[in-house]
C-alpha cells in the first residue's frame, strides 16, 4: 500500500513536470474587487474561468464589501503591507488617493505606454484622449486605467406613474412647471399623498435636477466641492451656493415642500421608496430605471405603471446629472512593481480587461454559451431571455457579465441589447436632445498643502451649506429675508478663498 502511494506520488510529480514543460504556467494575479451585496461575487462565474483559460492567467479575486471598499483600498495603498494585491479594480485618484499616488503608492500607467496597447486603443477608439489626460495628477502622471464609456447612459431620472398621467390626459412633462402641475393634481386627487420623493435621501433628486439650473452643490456635487459649481462656458469654478441660479432652484423646491408635494423625509433606502410608490403614497421619484421592476412588482394597485422620463428643462436648459466618460478603474499598487514579472502582469491585465474580445466577454459573455449571433444581432440564450429578474441582473448573477468592477469598456449600443425596447428608446430620446449629460470637470491638481487647505474649507462650508439649504427648503429660513445672512455666513467660512483656490489649480486654464 505504501509502495503504491509512493509510486503514485512519483507519477504525479513527473506528470506535473511534463505539463510544466509543455505549457507555460498561468501567471497568478491577485485582484481587489468591490462587492455589491445585491449581486454578490461568485467564484464560479463562467466569464472569469473562460477568460482565465483564454489568456492563461490565474485571477485571484478578493471580493471586498462595497460599503468598506474605500477604507480597505486607502489602507493597502498607505501601508503596502503583506496583503497588498497586485491589482485594484474600481478605484480612482480623487481626494486622499491622489496624494497617496503622488507620493509613490501606485504605478504610473503612462510610464510604459507600450505595455498597455489595448487600453490605448480603446481610448483612441472612443476619442477619450482629452478626458483621460484630465485624470493625470499634478506630476503629469496617470495612476489608473479608467473605465471607458463611448456614450454616457441615461440610467436614472424622473420616474412617474404613467398610468396616472394617461388617466388625467397629461403630456409627458418637459419643464419643472409641468412637473409642478402634475404633482399638484395628484395631491388634489389624493390629499394624504406626498407626490414626489427621492431615493437615497434627497441626494439623487438634487443630483439629477440641479444641472438644469446650472449648478451642482450640496451632496449632489459633480465637482467634489459641495458649494462650488462649474461654469461650462468659461471652464472655471464659481460659488454655486451663492448664485442666483441656486436661489431660483431652492425657491422652486421650497414651494413644492411647502405645498406638501415633496416628501419631507425622502426615502432613505429602496425599501422605503418601494413602500411609497407601490402603495400610491407617492407618484413620482428620482431614481434608477433598474428599480422600476421591483416597485411595480410590489404593488397591489391595479394598472400601476411607472416610466422614466427625459430630463426636465430649467433656466439652464434640460440637463441631467453630469457624467464622466472615464469612470473608476484599474490601479497597480507600488508593491506590485517589485514583482519580477511586473511587465507581464500589466500586459495581461491590459489584455484581459481592455482587449476588444475580452471586453465583449465581460459584457455579454461567451458566444455559443450565453448568446448566438443572428447576422449582426445578438440573441441571448433562453435561460437569459426568460429570467424573471431581467437580462441585466441575471447575466451578472449567473455568469458575471456586466459587473461594475470588472467591465471596463462600455459600448452603449451593446449595453442596450441587455435591456428592453423602452429603455433604449428613452436613451435615444435623451441623446437626441443634445448635451443633456454634460462632462464632469476634472478635479484640480492640488499639491499636498493646497489639498489640506481645500479639505478644511470644504468641510466647514459644506456643513454650513447643508443646514442653510435644508432650512430654506423647509421654510424655517426665508429665502429673501435671510439671504444676506446666509451669504455672509459662507463668506465668513471662506467661500471666496475656496473659489480662488480651486481656480488656481484648475486644469482647464
Amino acid at each position: 500500500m505504501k509502495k503504491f502511494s509512493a509510486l503514485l506520488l512519483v507519477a504525479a510529480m513527473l506528470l506535473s513536470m511534463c505539463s510544466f514543460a509543455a505549457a507555460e504556467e498561468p501567471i497568478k494575479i491577485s485582484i481587489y474587487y468591490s462587492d455589491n451585496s445585491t449581486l454578490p461575487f461568485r467564484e464560479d462565474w463562467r466569464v472569469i474561468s473562460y477568460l482565465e483559460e483564454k489568456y492563461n492567467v490565474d485571477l485571484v479575486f478578493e471580493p471586498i464589501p462595497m460599503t468598506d471598499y474605500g477604507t480597505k483600498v486607502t489602507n493597502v495603498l498607505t501601508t503596502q503591507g503583506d496583503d497588498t494585491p497586485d491589482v485594484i479594480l474600481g478605484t480612482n485618484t480623487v481626494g486622499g488617493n491622489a496624494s497617496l499616488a503622488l507620493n509613490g503608492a501606485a504605478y504610473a500607467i503612462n510610464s510604459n505606454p507600450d505595455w498597455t496597447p489595448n487600453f490605448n486603443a480603446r481610448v483612441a477608439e472612443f476619442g477619450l484622449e482629452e478626458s483621460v489626460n484630465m485624470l493625470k495628477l499634478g506630476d503629469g502622471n496617470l495612476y489608473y486605467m479608467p473605465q471607458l464609456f463611448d456614450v454616457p447612459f441615461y440610467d436614472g431620472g424622473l420616474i412617474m406613474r404613467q398610468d396616472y398621467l394617461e388617466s388625467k390626459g397629461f403630456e409627458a412633462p418637459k419643464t419643472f412647471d409641468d412637473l409642478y402641475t402634475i404633482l399638484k393634481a395628484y395631491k388634489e386627487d389624493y390629499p394624504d399623498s406626498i407626490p414626489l420623493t427621492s431615493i437615497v435621501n434627497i441626494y439623487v433628486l438634487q443630483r439629477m435636477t440641479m444641472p438644469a439650473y446650472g449648478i451642482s452643490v450640496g451632496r449632489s456635487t459633480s465637482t467634489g466641492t459641495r458649494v462650488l459649481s462649474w461654469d461650462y462656458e468659461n471652464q472655471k469654478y464659481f460659488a454655486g451656493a451663492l448664485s442666483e441660479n441656486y436661489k431660483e432652484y431652492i425657491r422652486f423646491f421650497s414651494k413644492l415642500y411647502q405645498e406638501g408635494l415633496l416628501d419631507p423625509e425622502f426615502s432613505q433606502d429602496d425599501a422605503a421608496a418601494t413602500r411609497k410608490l407601490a402603495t400610491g403614497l407617492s407618484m413620482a421619484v428620482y431614481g434608477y430605471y433598474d428599480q422600476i421592476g421591483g416597485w411595480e412588482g410590489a404593488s397591489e394597485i391595479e394598472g400601476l405603471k411607472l416610466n422614466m422620463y427625459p430630463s426636465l428643462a430649467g433656466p439652464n436648459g434640460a440637463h441631467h446629472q453630469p457624467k464622466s466618460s472615464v469612470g473608476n478603474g484599474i490601479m497597480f499598487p507600488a508593491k506590485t512593481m517589485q514583482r519580477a514579472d511586473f511587465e507581464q502582469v500589466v500586459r495581461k491585465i491590459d489584455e484581459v480587461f481592455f482587449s476588444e474580445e475580452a471586453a465583449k466577454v465581460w459584457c455579454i459573455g461567451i458566444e455559443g454559451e450565453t448568446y448566438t449571433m443572428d447576422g449582426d444581432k445578438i440573441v441571448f440564450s433562453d435561460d437569459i431571455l426568460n429570467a424573471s429578474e431581467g437580462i441585466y441582473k441575471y447575466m451578472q448573477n449567473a455568469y458575471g457579465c456586466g459587473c461594475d468592477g470588472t467591465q471596463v469598456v462600455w459600448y452603449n449600443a451593446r449595453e442596450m441589447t441587455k435591456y428592453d425596447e423602452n429603455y433604449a428608446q428613452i436613451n435615444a430620446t435623451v441623446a437626441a436632445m443634445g448635451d443633456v449629460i454634460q462632462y464632469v470637470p476634472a478635479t484640480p491638481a492640488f499639491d499636498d498643502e493646497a489639498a489640506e487647505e481645500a479639505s478644511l474649507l470644504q468641510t466647514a462650508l459644506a456643513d454650513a451649506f447643508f443646514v442653510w439649504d435644508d432650512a430654506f427648503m423647509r421654510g424655517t429660513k426665508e429665502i429673501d429675508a435671510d439671504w444676506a445672512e446666509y451669504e455672509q455666513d459662507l463668506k465668513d467660512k471662506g467661500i471666496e478663498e475656496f473659489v480662488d483656490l480651486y481656480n488656481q489649480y484648475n486644469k482647464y486654464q
Partner: protein
Amino acid sequence: MGKKDKSLQNMEHVKKVSFTHYMGRYWQFYLMMLVPLVYFILFKYVPMFGNILAFRHYKPLGGPYGDRWASGYKVWPAPFRYFEQFLLKAEFWTAFKNTLIISLENLIINFPFPIIFAILLNELRNLKLKKFIQTVSYVPRFVSTVVVVSIMSELLSPSMGMLTRVIDNVFGVGRIYYMNEPQYFRMLYILTDMWQFTGWTAIIYLAAITGISSDMFEAARIDGASRFQQIIYITIPTILPTIMVMLILNVGHLLSLGFEKVLLMQTSTNMSVSDIIDTYVYRYTLGSSSPQYSLGAALGLFNGVIGLILVSTSNFVSRRLTGNSIY
C-alpha cells in the same frame, strides 16, 4: 493622626522586608503578569507613538510618524497647527457642548436604570421567569445600530409611521417628523440607548449581586428587615464598589457616544443639537475629500486628555467619598 501613624508603620514594614525576600514570597504574581504585561505594552503602547502625528506633518507613505514637525497655521506657533485647526472653530465647540449635554443626560438616565433593573430582577422569585426576562432583555444588544435606527425611522415616519399616527390620534399634535426635529433628538437617542443596553449592562450588576453571601440576607431577616430594607442596606452597599467602578469608567468616557447611531440619526435640520465630536472628527478626517490624519490625531489626543482628566477626577472623588476607586 492615627491614620498617618498607621501608614508610617506600613512604610516601615515594607522597607524592612528586603527585595529578595519580597520577591521570594510574591514572585508568582509577577510571573502571572509577565505575559499579559508584555502583550499589553506591545499591542497598546507601541502603536500609541502614532499620536505624535498630532504635532507632525503627515506624508502619505512617509511612515506613521510624519516626515517633519508641523509648521504654524494662522495664529498659533509651530507644532500646534492641527490643534488650531479645530480649537479656534466655533463649530467644534458646538459639537463639544452637544456631546457633553447628550452624554450627561444619558448618564443621568441610563446609568441608574440597569442597576434598578438588576435589583428588581433579583427580587423575582420565579427562576424560570427570571431567566426568561434576563435573556429577553439582552436581545436588543444584538440588533445592529443600523437596524435600530431604521426601525425607529419607520415607526416615526411622518407619512407611514405607526407610532406617529398613534400619537397624532391620541394627542392631536399632527404628524410630526420626529426624527428630523431638533427637540426630539436627545430623547430618541437616550430611549434607544436604554432599549439596547439596559439588559446588557445589567449583567455586570447581576453578577455582583450573585456575589452577595446569602448569610447576610439571612441575618437581616432574623433582624426583621423588610425586603425593601434588605435592598437598601445589603444589596446596594455590597454592589456599591461595582457601581462606583462603572460610574468612574462612564464619566471617563463622557466624550464618546455611539458614533454610528448619531451619524445615522443626523439630519441637516437637527444638526444644531446632533453634531457631536465624533461626527465632527469623521467629517474632517475619513469623510472629507482628503483625509487629514494629523488633524485626526490632534482631535484624538484632545479627547484622550479630557477623558483622562475626567476619569482621574471621578476616581479621586469616588475614593474620597466612598473609598472605591479603580487605581
